């Protein structure tokens, strides 16, 4: 019975993949400007972002999911799909974590780079865009593969708000077939493959943007 049901697991894996890609992408789109703002923005902006950081790194993922689905969805006139609720909740959470990654990466760029850029007449914005971010991006890639891996596991909570992902497909199959151990081991393999395939892509990216001779073993296989 289990082997016949494998297509349903693949369907679930597709949804989980869609969830993690969207959430990490949202996290990146928001995380980069927030990370930059953590370092360079005016005090009131940094204070507001400090609050954002505390909330979205302080609440468990499942609480954020419920707040997004029942909180936003409960507002008069607003209807939110389960998929969107998961992407918003996990995306904002990822943005908070990624902002810290980018903040750290930015702070790793030598002060001399900023001084030189300003000296040749680049504006602060220009400096950030042309000098700091390209270098910070390289520093942040290893941590990003971590973020992907974590968010992928968090998507396993998606069924609590109604998204039928890989984890819930596994649950249905386990209940139906009563072979709990076999099914959960099988689904562990699915998550394993999804996780390490994703990490391999980040590794590829690391190698592609590595600057030869800069740093130690940059882009070359250390793990």
């Amino acid at each position, binding site marked *: *019975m289990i082997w016949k049901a494998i297509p349903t697991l693949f369907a679930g894996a597709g949804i989980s993949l869609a969830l993690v890609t969207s959430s990490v992408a949202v996290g990146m789109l928001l995380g980069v400007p927030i990370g930059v703002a953590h370092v360079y923005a005016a005090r009131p902006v940094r204070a507001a972002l400090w609050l954002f950081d505390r909330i979205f790194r302080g609440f468990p993922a499942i609480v954020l999911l419920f707040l997004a689905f029942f909180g936003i969805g409960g507002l008069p006139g607003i*209807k939110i*799909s*389960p998929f969107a609720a998961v*992407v918003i909740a996990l995306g904002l959470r990822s943005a908070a974590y990624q902002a810290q990654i980018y903040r750290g990466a930015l702070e790793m760029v030598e002060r001399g780079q900023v001084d030189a850029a300003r000296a040749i007449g680049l504006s602060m914005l220009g400096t950030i865009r042309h000098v700091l971010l390209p270098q910070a991006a390289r520093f942040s890639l290893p941590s990003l593969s971590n973020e992907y891996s974590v968010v992928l596991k968090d998507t396993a909570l998606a*069924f609590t708000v*109604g998204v*039928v992902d890989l984890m819930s497909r596994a649950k249905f199959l386990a209940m*139906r077939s009563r072979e709990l151990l076999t099914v959960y081991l099988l689904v562990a393999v699915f998550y394993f493959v999804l996780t390490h395939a994703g990490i391999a892509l980040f590794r590829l990216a690391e190698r592609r943007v590595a600057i030869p001779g800069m740093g130690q073993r940059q882009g070359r296989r250390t793990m």
Partner: protein
Amino acid sequence: MKYRTTLCLIVGVALCLGFAVSAEKVYVDGIDAAFPPFSFIDETGDPAGFDVDVLRWIADEMGFEVEIVPIDWDAIIPTLLSENIDLIASGMTITAARQERVAFTDAYWSIDLAVVVRQTEDADSEPAPELTLFEAIRPDRKVGVQRGTTSQDWLEENVIGAGIGIELMLYENFLLALEDLLIGRLDAAVMDGPTAQSGIAGRPLTVVGTISTGEIYGYAVRKGDADLLALLNEGLRRIQATDTWDELVAKWLVAK
């Protein structure tokens, strides 16, 4: 710069999947994905069960479309109230507490609760229940139920509420309770009668007694959704007058 465009495309497409708007009016039915024989997801990933078959017949007869989706039982009423589903047709008992939050159709089935224990052999090597019903609800016995069900309510009110200190263990669904009963982590499990029959089939478990609550099942809709309620009531009235009803009852609800 190409990275950014691709990134935006991916995000855009993915978000669109979530916000997809459907053109026609479809009623969405939320079900407990692991509540055989009333509602469950079968091995091909499709909804199946007595309530699923009946609802599909009613939708056909009354001229509306229905989409059946599995929902986490703990969140099913909030999901109904937040309008992400329109009805619940999933072996749901009509209770006073639930009536405060949702509206129910007319009752369509009645069940009692079953107490399940492990099966062992007696002196003549015949299969026999390990415990009697009253042994199963002695103080310090571990009894498992599905969270948010009338089994939980009954035990809390009539056993724990009466001062008998059983240890009530709550599970996400009753099948998990049965798994724990098999392993030995529970002494007994209590659940709806038909679902007990479905869960113990082919396993060394047996129903040692019935708690006659005579509870009744109904479909749940939002209060104020009078149109859908009328559609469903009329549909139930019609199907119960046909042979299809008897066929479905025989197919799903008669113990084999």
